[in-house]
């Protein structure tokens, strides 16, 4: 029996958070959400994600700071895919050495293909 891959969605916009949750849950992933970097760091221990979908511009703690602190944790970090509305999404992804990026707005297919590539069901 396969285990559903666990995805952590860190996104400050409530609607987008819900959208990603609906899409990925519908595709059989186990989804945890957080509205900012600090909230994400609080849940990451329990959630043990296989992949982090990370927005960059967020209040309280932004994507840059989250990536730094997340990777400083003792357990091996999951791959990070940047989710951004910035013009230069690739550059943003490179800044934190992300494993992939997805510009907003995005197609469901693109999201699903990127997630399955980085977080295949075990």
């Amino acid at each position, binding site marked *: 029996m396969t285990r559903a891959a666990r995805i952590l969605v860190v996104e400050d*916009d409530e*609607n987008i958070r819900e959208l990603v949750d609906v899409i990925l849950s519908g595709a059989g992933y186990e989804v945890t959400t957080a509205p900012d970097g600090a909230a994400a760091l609080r849940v990451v221990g329990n959630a043990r994600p296989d992949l982090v979908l990370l927005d960059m511009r967020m209040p*309280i703690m932004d994507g840059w700071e989250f990536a730094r602190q997340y990777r400083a944790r003792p357990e091996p970090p999951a791959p990070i895919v940047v989710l951004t509305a*910035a013009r230069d999404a690739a550059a943003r992804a490179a800044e934190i050495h992300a494993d992939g990026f997805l510009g907003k707005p995005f197609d469901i297919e693109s999201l699903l293909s990127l997630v399955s590539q980085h977080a295949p069901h075990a």
Partner: protein
Amino acid sequence: MVIEGRSRLGARLRETLSRITEEAAHLLDVEGAGLRLVEGDELVRVAAYGPEGGVMARERLHLGESLSGQVAASGRPLIVDTPDAEPTHDPVYRAQAQVHGFRSWLGVPLRDHERVIGVLVMQSRTERRFGPTDVRLLEAFAGQAAVAIENAQLFEREYERRRQLEAVREVTSWLASATDLATLLERISRTAADLLAVESVAVYLWDEAGAMLVPRAWHGFGDWLGELRLRPGEGVAGTVAQRRAGVVVDDYRTVPFAQPIVRERDVARAVIGEPLLYEGELRGVITASIRNEERTFGEQDRQLLSLFAAQAVIAIEHAHLHEARDLALAEAEAARRRAAFLAEASAALASSLDYDATLDRIARLAVPTLADLCTVFMLTEGGEIRRAAVAHVEGIRADLAAVMERYRTGPVSPYGNVASAIRTGQSVLREQLPNDYFEAVAQDADDLETLRKLDWRSAIVVPLRARGETAGALALFRSGPDRPYDPADLSLAEELAGRAALAVDNARLYREARHAVQVRDEFLSVAAHELKTPVTTLLGFSQVLIGQLSQDGVLDERTVGRAVRAVEHGSRRMSRLVAQILDISRLDGGRLVLDRQITDLSALVHGIATAMQSTTRRHGLLVRTPDRVPALVDALRLEQVVTNLLDNAIKYSPTGGQIRIELEQPSRGVARLAVVDHGVGIEPERRQHIFDRFYQAREGDHVSGMGLGLYISRQIVELHGGSIEPEFPSDGGTRFVVELPTGLAEGVPDGGRGVTP
């Protein structure tokens, strides 16, 4: 015949007198001989023959005094056989006769017609006594000698006159050698002193504007004379000027027009003065004076000085013309240089629009033509003065590199010339910086040391003014004592400052324009980013629904509910963003027009608060308003303002908390709304910008929004004639206070105050 003074005996005459004396001694075969000439009521020694100091020991004798005096007074020869014992003989001579063994004394008068002009004296050491033969022989010789002396004196006078004419001719020759006025006056003074054989000469020039005589060159006087100013009628010179004719004074101490200071400082008695007249116009006065002597000026002196003055004034006039021409040439050259300098400055300043480069260029332009050190001071937005650019001459200050660096970055005194020029908009010219200047402006001990080491002596500060505003100042300094600034330097500096101010202003406008473009680009980028967020929601949920429909034609009820709510929310957000962009466009074009209706502000505030409360569970909105606050306002626009303030309060309180909305009427006709949060607040250095367009109060926090809300809100409030002010309570958070005129002359009766949770 008049002997005018011992000092005036020429060498030739002296030789003649010695020879006469010596020949007489040989003629009578005596060991001692002497000759005295009459001068006033005295007999003055003019030649001596025999043992050193043995004859003619006394220089002057009165007529009647001693043996020679008796001969001169009586006009008759005299023989004395015991000169060492003769009681009427001067005791000095009696002693001398004993020492040198003179046994017999003979004196005969020298005559010019009937007048006694001198005495010839013979003294013998031998046993022989002088007798009638000796007297006749000596008298005959004296007759010859008198003629010889007369001739020698005539020759001497002629010689002197020629010498004087020569000196006068020499003055004339200066006409051709175009010397400068100061040197010429100096030479005139010296030559006059030689010519008249006097110790003191002063040359005054007539100052037409001041109607007075000003001393310009002198000999034999102290520096005090330079301070003297004589009006017509004052002193000898003033009297000469008034009479336009020569004046001769025998004793200065007794004349009515004597100047107290001259009488006090100078011991002169006889004074002569001649006007310097050029074509009948008074150009000045020359005076000469004699001290400590009985000599006075005679007609001959007066004629000579008059002749000399006539020549001198031509030379003076000539030098004046030369000087005027040189001055005109120098001025033309200076004007040409100024024009070239300013043309170069204009070209250099026009070559760049870069603000900092322009400031640097201005500083460098002034060095070295105008200054050893030039500093451009600019007024900051906060009203402080800072050094924006510094340039100094190469080399001379190399040893002071550290001092210069400290100067560049050091404090600027609010009491110095720079601050004063910026404050008043007026230039400052300090030809000589006072010794205590640095003490007055130094901000601390280090600063004082820096300023002292730079050793500035002269300074100009000109304000940089463009379009009626003083943006800064240009300070020019020269070190060293020999090149103080003058008004011509100031006017050149002002010309430079005028051009510099324009260049700085252009560079500033260019920088602002460029900044505006940058801000707009940034805004477009932010706006696109902001729009992408709701578009992501709309597109995503539409695809989710389409996917469900195409898969099995059945829509999951829960998903549909979430999707529709998200689409509705996203659409509203897009619509608000678009409205804001349109508002900006309207405000920029002045096309935002209010649609005023009588509105109850209490109801309006409650309505918005209720709607906003439904969007957040983390925040508690607490509303306090009177029952009714009617006002003549554009309700939709005010809704926008209140919504924006609440939106900000929520946005900047990311961890939640209470938000208070308080509406009140502090006085009739005024409504006041306060929105208070306890969120993250605004950093002090960013507070002054929060109402700027496209400005986000907390850049690092990535709070969503385009930075337009407060800008638009303020415009709307101000269109209503009201104001909006932020307050920053010490316990954190932010309090925005909006005051609006209600626009209703008579307030509707105030209902009681109510509290709505």
